[in-house]
C-alpha cells in the first residue's frame, strides 16, 4: 500500500480493498521501523491517528466520504494542532501544545484525512538543509549522508521514504520546492493568499505560504483542493473561488508557451542538472509546448532583497516569544530584562538569532530606507519582470535548485552559501507567484527537480503541466533503496 499514490489509495478505500485503519497501521509500522534512521517525525500521533482512521472507515461505510477521507497525511510541525505539541523545530516551543487547530489542519480534519504526526523542519522554517532543527537534522532517504533540503525537509523525506502518502509544507523562500527537489517528490507553493496562514507559525508574513507535498501532481491537486480557499481569520487570505484542480489535470498542453529565463541557465547551474533539465524540457516540447527564451533582469537581486525582507519580518514576528505568555522561559531570571534576553537567547538557535539580529538592525532608526524600503522597491522590480514575462509565456521553467542534495555540514559554516541554495526559488516568493517542483531525473543517485512558475492563481495550469509530464515519465514512481 505504501507505494500507492493518494489517488490510488482513495480508490482502494472506496472499493473496500482495505480499510483506513489497515492503511494507517501500515504507515505507523513503517514509521516505527524506518524513521529512527531518517528523523522525519518530531511527534507521531499514533493513537489519534487510529481513532481518526476508525471514524473515516465509518464515514466511508456510510457513503459520505470525500476524496481524502481515510487517507493518512502528515503535518509540518509549523501548523498548530490542538492538543498536540507544535514545536516549529525550536527549543522555544518544545513544550508548546497549541490550543487550536490551524485552518489547514482543520480543513484536513473536515475532509476526514488521518494525521500520522508532525514533521521535522528547520527551526522556525529558517534554513535550507534541516540542520537548524532543535530535534536534529532529517536525513535524505536517497543518501543518508546528505541533507533533505529545507525548511520542509521532514515533509519531503517522509513522502520520499513512503512514511506518509502526503505532507504539508510551507514556503517562504523555497522551503517546499527545494526539499521536494532534493528528495525527488512533487510540491507546490501556491499564490500568496491562496492557502490560509491562520495557525501557521509566522516567519515572514508577506512571503509565507503553505502548500502540499506528495509523490505526484495529481496527489498535490487533491491536497490543494482541501487546503485552498478564503479564510476570514487570515487578513491576507484572498477571497476568490477555488477551481477544480483535479478536473484540470488532463487538459492538453498543446500550444503551451514555456519561457526559459536566461538568468536561470547561467554559470551558477550545475552542468549535469542542466542536461537533465534539457531532457525534461524536450518531453514538454514533445507534448506540444513551445519554448521561448525570456529574461528576468532583476533576478540576481532576489536573494539580497530577501535577506532584508525576511529577517525584518522575522524579527518582528518572533518578538512574541518573550518567556511570559507561552514558550520557553529561562531558569531563575534576575529581573524582567534578564527573563526576556535569556529566554530568547536560550530558546532560539544560532540561525534564528542571526536573522533576528539582521532584521532588528535593518529596521532600527536611520536604516529603514536603506534596507527595508530599498528591498521592497526591488521586490517591485522583480514582480514587474515576471509580469512582463507572463505577457509572452504561460509558464516559466527552470531548475528548482542550483545543485542536488549536498552533504551535512557542507554549508553550515557559511550562511551566504546556504542562502544561495534558494537562488532560483526566492524571486517567486518576493513576487507572490505560484511555483512548483517536479522530479525530472537524477545526478548519480540524487534526484533533480524542475521548477514550474505560473502567473497569479494559475496553480491549476502548473498541476496540469506537471501531471501531463508525469504521464509520459516515471521519475515520480522511483523509490529510494530500502524504502520501496
Amino acid at each position, binding site marked *: 500500500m505504501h507505494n500507492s499514490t493518494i489517488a490510488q489509495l482513495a480508490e482502494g478505500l472506496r472499493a473496500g480493498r482495505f480499510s483506513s485503519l489497515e492503511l494507517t497501521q501500515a504507515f505507523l509500522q513503517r514509521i516505527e521501523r524506518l524513521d529512527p534512521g531518517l528523523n522525519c517525525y518530531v511527534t507521531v500521533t499514533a493513537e489519534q491517528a487510529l481513532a481518526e482512521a476508525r471514524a473515516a472507515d465509518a464515514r466511508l461505510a456510510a457513503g459520505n466520504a470525500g476524496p481524502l477521507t481515510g487517507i493518512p497525511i502528515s503535518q509540518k510541525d509549523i501548523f498548530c494542532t490542538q492538543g498536540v505539541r507544535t514545536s516549529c523545530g525550536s527549543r522555544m516551543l518544545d513544550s508548546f*501544545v497549541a*490550543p487550536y487547530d490551524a485552518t489547514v489542519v482543520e480543513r484536513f480534519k473536515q475532509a476526514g484525512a488521518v494525521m500520522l504526526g508532525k514533521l521535522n523542519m528547520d527551526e522556525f522554517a529558517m534554513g535550507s538543509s534541516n540542520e537548524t532543527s532543535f530535534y536534529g537534522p532529517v536525513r535524505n532517504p536517497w543518501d543518508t549522508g546528505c541533507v533533505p533540503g529545507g525548511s520542509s525537509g521532514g515533509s519531503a523525506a517522509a513522502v520520499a521514504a513512503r512514511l506518509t502518502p502526503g505532507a504539508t509544507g510551507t514556503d517562504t523562500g523555497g522551503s517546499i520546492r527545494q526539499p521536494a527537489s532534493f528528495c525527488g517528490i512533487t510540491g507546490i507553493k501556491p*499564490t*500568496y*493568499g491562496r492557502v490560509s496562514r491562520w495557525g501557521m507559525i509566522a516567519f515572514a508574513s*508577506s512571503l509565507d505560504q503553505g502548500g502540499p507535498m506528495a509523490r505526484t501532481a495529481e496527489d498535490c491537486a487533491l491536497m490543494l483542493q482541501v487546503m485552498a480557499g478564503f479564510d*476570514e481569520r487570515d*487578513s*491576507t487570505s*484572498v477571497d476568490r473561488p477555488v477551481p477544480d484542480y483535479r478536473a484540470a489535470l488532463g487538459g492538453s498542453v498543446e500550444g503551451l508557451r514555456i519561457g526559459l529565463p536566461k538568468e536561470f541557465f547561467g554559470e551558477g547551474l550545475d552542468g549535469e542538472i542542466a542536461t537533465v533539465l534539457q531532457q525534461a524540457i524536450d518531453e514538454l516540447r514533445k507534448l506540444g509546448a513551445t519554448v521561448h527564451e525570456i529574461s528576468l533582469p*532583476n533576478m540576481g*537581486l532576489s536573494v*539580497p*532583497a530577501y*535577506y*532584508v525582507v525576511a529577517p525584518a519580518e522575522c*524579527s518582528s514576528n518572533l518578538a512574541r516569544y*518573550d*518567556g*511570559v*505568555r*507561552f*514558550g*520557553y*522561559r529561562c531558569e531563575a*531570571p534576575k*529581573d*524582567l530584562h*534578564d*527573563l*526576556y*534576553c*535569556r529566554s*530568547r*537567547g*536560550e530558546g*532560539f538557535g544560532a540561525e534564528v*538569532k*542571526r536573522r533576528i*539580529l*539582521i532584521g*532588528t*538592525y535593518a529596521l532600527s532608526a536611520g536604516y529603514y530606507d536603506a*534596507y527595508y*524600503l*530599498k*528591498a*521592497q*522597491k*526591488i*521586490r*517591485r*522590480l522583480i*514582480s514587474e519582470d515576471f509580469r512582463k514575462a507572463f505577457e509572452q509565456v504561460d509558464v516559466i521553467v527552470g531548475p528548482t535548485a542550483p545543485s542536488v542534495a549536498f552533504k551535512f555540514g557542507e554549508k553550515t559554516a557559511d*550562511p*551566504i552559501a546556504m542562502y544561495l541554495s534558494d537562488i532560483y526559488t526566492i524571486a517567486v516568493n*518576493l*513576487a*507572490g*507567484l505560484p511555483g512548483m517542483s517536479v522530479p525530472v531525473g537524477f545526478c548519480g543517485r540524487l534526484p533533480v527537480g524542475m521548477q514550474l512558475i505560473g502567473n497569479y492563481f494559475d496553480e491549476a495550469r502548473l498541476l496540469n503541466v506537471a501531471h501531463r509530464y508525469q504521464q509520459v515519465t516515471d521519475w515520480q514512481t522511483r523509490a529510494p533503496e530500502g524504502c520501496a
Partner: protein
Amino acid sequence: MSLDSEAVKRIAWLARLSIDDDRVADYARDLSGILDFVEQMNAVDTGSAMPLAHPLDQSQRLRPDEVVESDQRERFQQQAPAVEAGLYLVPKVIE
C-alpha cells in the same frame, strides 16, 4: 558594511536577545558578511519604483467592529510558564 562586537551587543539588546560573550565575534563576522551581501541591492537604481508590501497590492480587509471572540483566558494561560489568579507572573519590576 561591517559590524563590530559593540554594534552586535547593541542590536542584541534592542532585540532582547542574550548572546554568549564568546560568540559575539562570530556573530559580528556573520552579520557583516550578510550585510555586505545585501549591499548588492545598491547596484540598481530603484528610483521611482513603488515599494511592494503585498504581492497582490491588496489592502487589509475591514470588518464591522463587533465582538466575535469569547474570553478563553484560562485555556490560553495553560501555555504560560507562570500564572496566578489569571495574571502572568514575571520577576518584580518595582521594589
